[in-house]
């Protein structure tokens, strides 16, 4: 079936073009496509067997040589249906984008994201008691599912979590008796008739207001918040403690790993998340590369985990760097709730919740950095905390790397690809060219050598649309949107 030409330059029907591009970009020059499982076996709707062809869609933000620190994006999060995309930055600001509903109906309305609302969520504070500055940087944003018709999100900095309500107003009342249309009070003696105010349409106004402020519950820096599937409670985690909150303000501590003697401290909490459907389960990851699954039904204080997930390691292989690079920077449950993915410095690992002895899959993100650990320790990059994301169907995993590269892993085909968030050579709808890093020896044309990677351009934060193949990638102060070519 040949689709009508979309725009100049594409010409062919989409399926035909996919097949050709597949061969050129993703496969070695093999004689047949049958070396791996035929795509059709997987039963995917799309002609290329579920493999995704990523295209540049949009980029937000400015090109600057000297990036203002406040503009650095510190978190990215889609809401539950992907219609809204929130970003938080180091300056404490939240910007919400909304997916444009319009679009060519022939091509399933792949809408663009445009600004919907923005507000100052957190301000810098000074803790006078401790003489310490509290950064306004937004560490995490999580959406609540209800939208009645307002939208709610939680945003947090190091110390304070706020619940924001985002509402739309598209009508204005006019015809008041006591004030005129400009809002100025009328002279009461001039009012001698009574009229009923009526609602007139007005230009859409989106307003955000803080509804709750959850403060003073964390001695240490908050690294995670996660909303429970019951949509009424959420957890917040800092280095040593996890608190459970009811959205109506009360809170209780559910995990406390602070030792009586701080000299005995050996590991900290790095991330925590509620299970997507089991409202009593949550996990938290540690700086030692372990994940603990906790069940709140067992006891109020979940210091005893239900399951401990840890990959065994040969102690003779340990080096000074082993623990640092095993620290888990992010943990995310799959949408189906059966798996979780963890990100440590060099790899992503998929765990089956039924099996705590080792991960079921391990993908190398940038193994070529292992021989650079000394330098990465010296420039602090070894402590960078990368996030990871699942595709809506749990088949793909995405995570960031350096040089504005990001990595995509296809769990089914076991194939991976490296893409770049860059303004160069991008036109909307053109498929991104895979990138390759060469770790030594002869560098092929188009490959980039490890020593030429820009370690200041790192993709720490990204989000995958919960339903569609749309990626929101934060590259320092720019937000890139990529979508699959369909």
């Amino acid at each position: 079936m040949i689709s009508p030409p979309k725009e100049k330059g594409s010409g062919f029907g989409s399926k035909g073009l996919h097949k050709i591009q597949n061969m050129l970009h993703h496969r070695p020059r093999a004689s047949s496509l049958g070396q791996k499982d035929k795509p059709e076996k997987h039963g995917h709707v799309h002609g290329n067997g579920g493999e995704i062809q990523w295209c540049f869609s949009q980029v937000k933000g400015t090109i600057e040589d000297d990036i203002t620190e406040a503009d650095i994006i510190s978190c990215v999060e889609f809401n539950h249906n992907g219609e809204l995309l929130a970003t938080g930055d180091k300056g404490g600001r939240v910007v919400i984008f909304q997916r444009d509903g319009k679009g060519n109906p022939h091509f399933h309305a792949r809408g663009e994201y445009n600004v919907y609302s923005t507000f100052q969520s957190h301000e810098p504070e000074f803790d006078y008691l401790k003489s310490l500055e509290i950064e306004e940087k937004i560490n995490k944003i999580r959406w609540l599912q209800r939208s009645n018709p307002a939208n709610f999100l939680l945003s947090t900095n190091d110390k304070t979590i706020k619940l924001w309500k985002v509402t739309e107003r598209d009508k204005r009342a006019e015809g008041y008796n006591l004030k005129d249309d400009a809002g100025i009070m009328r002279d009461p003696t001039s009012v001698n008739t009574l009229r009923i105010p009526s609602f007139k349409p007005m230009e859409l106004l989106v307003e955000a207001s803080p509804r709750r402020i959850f403060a003073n519950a964390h001695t240490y820096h908050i690294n995670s918040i996660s909303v429970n599937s019951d949509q009424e409670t959420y957890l917040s985690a800092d280095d040593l403690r996890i608190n459970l909150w009811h959205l109506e303000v009360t809170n209780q501590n559910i995990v406390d790993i602070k030792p009586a003697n701080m000299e005995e401290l050996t590991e900290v909490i790095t991330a925590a998340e509620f299970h997507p459907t089991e409202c009593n389960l949550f996990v938290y990851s540690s700086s030692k590369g372990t994940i603990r699954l906790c069940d709140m039904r067992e006891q109020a204080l979940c210091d005893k985990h239900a399951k401990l997930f840890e990959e065994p390691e040969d102690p003779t292989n340990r080096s000074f760097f082993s623990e640092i690079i095993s620290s888990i920077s992010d943990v995310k449950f799959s949408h189906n709730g059966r798996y979780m993915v963890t990100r440590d410095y060099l790899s992503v690992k998929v765990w089956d919740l039924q099996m705590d002895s080792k991960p079921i899959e391990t993908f190398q993100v940038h193994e070529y950095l292992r021989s650079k650990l000394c330098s990465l320790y010296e420039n602090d990059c070894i402590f960078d905390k990368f996030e990871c994301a699942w595709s809506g169907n749990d088949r793909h995993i995405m995570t960031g790397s350096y040089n504005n590269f990001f990595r995509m892993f296809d769990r089914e085909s076991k194939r991976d690809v490296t893409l770049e968030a860059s303004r160069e050579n991008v036109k909307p709808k053109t498929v991104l060219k895979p990138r390759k890093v060469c770790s030594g020896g002869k560098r092929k044309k188009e490959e980039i050598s490890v020593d030429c990677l820009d370690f200041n351009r790192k993709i720490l934060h990204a989000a995958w649309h919960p339903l569609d193949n749309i990626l929101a990638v934060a590259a320092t102060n720019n937000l890139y949107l990529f979508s699959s070519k369909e």
Partner: protein
Amino acid sequence: METQTQPESVTFKVPEDPASIEKEQEAKLKAKYGPLPKYFDSGDYNMAKAKMNNPKKPLPAREKLMLQESLGAAIPTPGEVEHMRRPSQIASKLLIHDVEGEGDGQIDG
């Protein structure tokens, strides 16, 4: 970032397994800085960090946490506090409407 290793085309000398690569990196670090304590020990260094709570180097877990619990030595100046109290009026640059991936444009929304 520079490397001072041998050119890696001498393949038979390059260790392949992760453990030996890491140990080689560790040896390199020790050669530069001498024997490394697992955690920093210097109280002065930590207190200096606490002064403006703006660590340039991430600290190991325990030191970082003890900083957050402890009292800092800084007495804020009015200028510093004013900066912190003044609400940020500057809009995010993500609001700027992009045309064709260029950096300039009108404010969106």
